[in-house]
């Protein structure tokens, strides 16, 4: 299979600037996410990782720049084109953002019901398939989000993000607040899903384990720009002071073992 370097970028971010009042959060930032990869996105707290994610999704307005997802310029797209793009991506929010007045079943079925006119039977079956995929038992289907543990909320939220079989998922700190075993399982899960569904994953994370086990490529954000991209080996070889501290600090050594 011939891979063309230009067309295989599923997200192309060019020259993006985002400003809140007088503080410039993202400063002429460029980033490519390739089809089928898991991109880990790291950076100091408050560097603007979530802001970039939200800008790409369209929740934060940008001052200037250009964002292409699936080759479609999101600013130039008509609202129906935009909706079509939105159908092809799934988003896992940091706190899960499950609809609190709907059960797990209804949460997962919600996007499917809105976009596809399929029978209730298929809705239920797909819901169970998604629950199994994210490693939950079908018994949780009739619980409300307030009756779930933190890890279960993340899993259900992932199941909802995957409900329409998107090609691209945004994960905002998926393993934060999970125990190490749960976090490890989650990384494994993301890997498996990426293999089985051919997903592209854009993952904001602080978890070194996730970077080592789940990610194909890592991008580092600092001072409103991407300061480095590459494999984990590239990151370890980097001389950038923050990267050195991040990948050679006490916690990093513990992970590498």
């Amino acid at each position, binding site marked *: 299979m011939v891979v063309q370097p230009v067309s295989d970028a599923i997200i192309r971010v060019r020259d993006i600037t985002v400003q809140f009042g007088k503080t410039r959060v993202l400063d002429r930032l460029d980033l490519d996410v390739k089809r089928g990869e898991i991109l880990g996105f790291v950076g100091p707290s408050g560097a603007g990782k979530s802001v970039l994610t939200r800008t790409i999704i369209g929740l934060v307005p940008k001052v200037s720049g250009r964002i292409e997802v699936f080759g479609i310029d999101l600013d130039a797209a008509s609202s129906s084109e935009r909706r079509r793009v939105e159908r092809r991506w799934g988003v896992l929010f940091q706190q899960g953002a499950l609809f*609190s*007045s709907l059960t797990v079943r209804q949460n997962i079925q919600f996007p499917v019901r809105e976009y596809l006119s399929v*029978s209730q039977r*298929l809705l239920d079956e797909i*819901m*169970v*398939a998604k629950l199994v995929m994210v490693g939950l038992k079908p018994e949780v289907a009739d619980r409300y989000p307030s009756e779930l543990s933190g890890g279960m909320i993340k899993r259900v939220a992932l199941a909802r993000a995957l409900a329409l*079989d998107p090609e691209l998922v945004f994960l905002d700190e998926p393993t934060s607040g999970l125990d190490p075993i749960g976090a490890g399982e989650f990384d494994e899960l993301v890997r498996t899903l990426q293999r089985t569904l051919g997903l592209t994953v854009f993952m904001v994370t602080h978890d070194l384990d996730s970077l080592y086990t789940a990610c194909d490529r890592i991008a580092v954000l600092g001072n409103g720009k991407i300061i480095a991209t590459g494999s984990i080996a590239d990151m370890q070889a980097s001389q950038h002071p923050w990267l050195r501290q991040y990948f050679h600090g006490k916690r990093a050594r513990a992970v590498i073992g």
Partner: protein
Amino acid sequence: MNGDPTLKRIAQGNGLALCAVGPWTARFAPVLERMVADAEKLRGTRPDIFIDVSQVSKLDTFGAWLIERLRRSLSHGGGEAIIAGLSENYSSLVDEVRQVKETPEVEASPVSLTAMLDQIGRTVVGIGGTVIGLVDMLGAVLAASGHVLVRPRSFRLTSTIHHLEQVCWRAVPIVVLITFLIGCIISQQGIFHFRRFGADIFVVDMLGVLVLREIGVLLVAIMVAGRSGSAYTAELGSMKMREEIDALRTMGFDPIEVLVLPRMLALVLALPILAFLGAMAALYGGGLVAWLYGGVDPEAFLLRLRDAISIDHFIVGMVKAPVMAAVIGIVACVEGLAVQGSAESLGQHTTSSVVKGIFFVIVMDGVFAIFFASIGM
């Protein structure tokens, strides 16, 4: 891309091959579901049926599940149906959906006489629970007040002032405007009807008694229940949802003392002030209309007012205000603390805070009317 997906039927000897072609993805799920439902009817018609998926151009969970569903229903009538031509990169997906068990149907809740009686029973028990909850909160607030009286330093003055600003100072414009208008309307209606008997001047009696005894305080209490009672419930409810109240408790603070007491106190101070301002605005509005519409000049109005009402009327109105405030505050805080985890629950409790608040205010007003009548005020 590759056009629409299809499911071709190709006879092979005495067997049958079902050939899935094209993209079997979520986008085409409605079409695919119908095709699969059609093909499921083939069960048992041939001894040997297999599903060929080698020509599927794209597969996702929806497609994989529908193929799996077809395989299962074809397998039921003797002989295992097999899936052939599965490409390497889709096999793990098919393995994944193979773990899915057929889902049990969702049980619809039975609608019957028993269910209805059950509902009525629960509602009655709920009413009992409400009353107990209110008494419980009253007790907790009194206990917290006692605690604060013993240790005045634990009193939250800043918080109380903040709430006083919210429920009193910021409410003044709307309360004054509405009571002013109501005063105007009462006066206009009074003059309109009394004029027929030539008793224009008695409108002042009616206005004075009505506004000072009843309308002033009742109207303001209802407005406060809608404006501040709902805010209290929503604030406490969202704090409850985010476990902030549990956090307070684990730090050794009493949520009643920290959250409820300042709010209650602010409300108890605010309502008499607002009721007084409201009564004055209503009298002013009534006087204005009496002058402009009824030709009762201000001097005559004031003279008549002095004869018609005594200080008792004013006291009756003002005494009710703090009690009504306490009722509104207790109802709002009980509802706020009863909020469960969902947004829907927050909405329900905010609604019921306002509804119950207004209901209890009117009941209290009735009780006061009986009380004051029997002591001759």
